């Protein structure tokens, strides 16, 4: 990163902290190393080891994880009675390296108590445009974006239909095990590249199977109150109207572990402290995580996150 870019990056961080300070959202820090990890079917974690003594034998050392996001710790704070909070910090995702990926990157994550998805979408767009300047805003749903880009309704499509539509666009699609796999492929290769390059695009109401930890939409249970925000065709943020129910959280995480196993990934331990905190009572809230390096990259007119990192992965 050049000296000029470093100064611009610092100014953006300053602007974001001002943005939240003026809205009464409090900055917090939570652990980077954790005894449990969040469990995502498609995320690979970095492991580390705690040693109670210098040179302790293997059986006394404790395996810990680098966080893939600060989500569970921040939710534990909300369950403990904290109000609106945000965090800017490093997160770690193994096996992700490319033009838009660095295995360690900076995440901006925040939670708004008592807010629904719509309110948080508005604020997320406000935060992004505070950094990027005025932009055209495009608001659509996952289903609408698919119908416009490939003429298929993802909420009632089959794997074969999606595969055929991809191939009709000259894409030789891999063989998909599930509809979700096929939809994610079409999303990444057709829908996202078709989004208007000069706009901030909000896509909401993801299919229920891709709810992750969002609540299911009461009006259309085929969808979840989950949204993503794109800068042009680049994914910037992912948000949920948060699922507070402890049992359903546990069920979904176990399901993620089942997927992980089928994909050849290791089974991860459930975060009992997180689940216990939810069981004690969790406020209605919405939360969103935003890839800060990508936002800085767009603000600086760069093509790769490397340009806004002091030491990208291969030189870290």
């Amino acid at each position, binding site marked *: 990163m050049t000296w000029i870019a470093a100064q611009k990056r610092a100014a953006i961080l300053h602007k974001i902290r001002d943005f939240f300070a003026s809205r009464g959202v409090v900055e917090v820090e939570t652990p980077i190393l954790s005894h449990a990890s969040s469990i995502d079917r*498609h995320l690979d974690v970095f492991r580390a080891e705690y040693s109670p003594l210098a040179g302790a034998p293997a059986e006394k050392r404790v395996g810990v994880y680098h966080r893939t996001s600060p989500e569970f710790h921040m939710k534990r704070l909300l369950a403990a009675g904290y109000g609106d909070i945000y965090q800017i910090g490093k997160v770690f995702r193994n096996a*992700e*390296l*490319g*033009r838009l990926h660095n295995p360690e990157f900076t995440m901006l994550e925040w939670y708004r108590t008592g807010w629904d998805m719509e309110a948080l979408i508005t604020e997320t767009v406000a935060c992004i445009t505070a950094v990027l300047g005025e932009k055209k805003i495009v608001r659509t749903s996952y289903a609408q974006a698919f119908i416009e880009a490939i003429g298929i309704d993802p909420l009632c499509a089959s794997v074969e239909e999606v595969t055929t539509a991809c191939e009709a666009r000259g894409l030789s699609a891999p063989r998909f095990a599930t509809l979700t796999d096929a939809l994610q492929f079409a999303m990444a*290769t057709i829908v996202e590249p078709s989004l208007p390059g000069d706009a901030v695009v909000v896509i909401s109401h993801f299919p229920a199977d891709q709810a*992750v930890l969002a609540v299911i939409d009461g009006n259309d249970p085929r969808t979840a109150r989950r949204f*993503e925000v794109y800068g042009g065709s680049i*994914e910037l943020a992912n948000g949920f109207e948060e699922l507070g129910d402890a049992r359903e959280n546990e069920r979904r995480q176990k399901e993620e572990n089942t997927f992980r196993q089928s994909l050849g990934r290791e089974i991860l331990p459930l975060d009992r402290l997180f689940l216990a905190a939810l069981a004690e009572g969790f406020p209605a809230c919405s939360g969103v995580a935003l890839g800060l390096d990508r936002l800085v990259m767009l603000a600086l007119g760069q093509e790769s996150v490397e340009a806004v990192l002091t030491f990208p992965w291969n030189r870290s």
Partner: protein
Amino acid sequence: MGTIDTSEFRKKAKIIFEGQPWIIVENDFVKPGKGQAFNRTKIKNLLTGRVLDKTFKSGETFEEADISTVSMQYLYSDGARYTFMNTQNYEQIEISGEVMEDASPWILENAVCEVMFWGEKVIGVVPPTFVDLVVTYTEPAVRGDTANNVTKKAKMETGAEINVPFFIESGMKLKIDTRTGEYLQRSS
């Protein structure tokens, strides 16, 4: 040869895909935050030159294509086949006109080319980047045609036809960039 997985895709990596050798022209790692990872690539078939947009699931593995290049000197041609000599061990090989298609308009006898092999099989010939060739015919310059950037056709001694500035005359020797087929300057 070893295997290459998608994390080892780089520009110019060479893989076997559907039984043929391909070179990676572009590679982009694509992964939604909550989704599975893909590699969106542009690959070029080293036999046919065909370029294909292809998206692979991250983690797929491929046999590495056994591609090597050897410097060889062009000796002579009987019209259908071209005879080259390995400049290291003086072995001679014949290369078909079909494989020579891209290189033959630019080379004279004794030119040293990079010959690409897939295993034992010759699959391509890259001529020297810059060559000096004599103009065998071009229309004489006409008075008044002195405007900038006006060009005309010139036929070179190898048979290639290129665009040249108006002041170029038959018999002149020109430096040409074989990657673009463009005239650069008069040879000194």
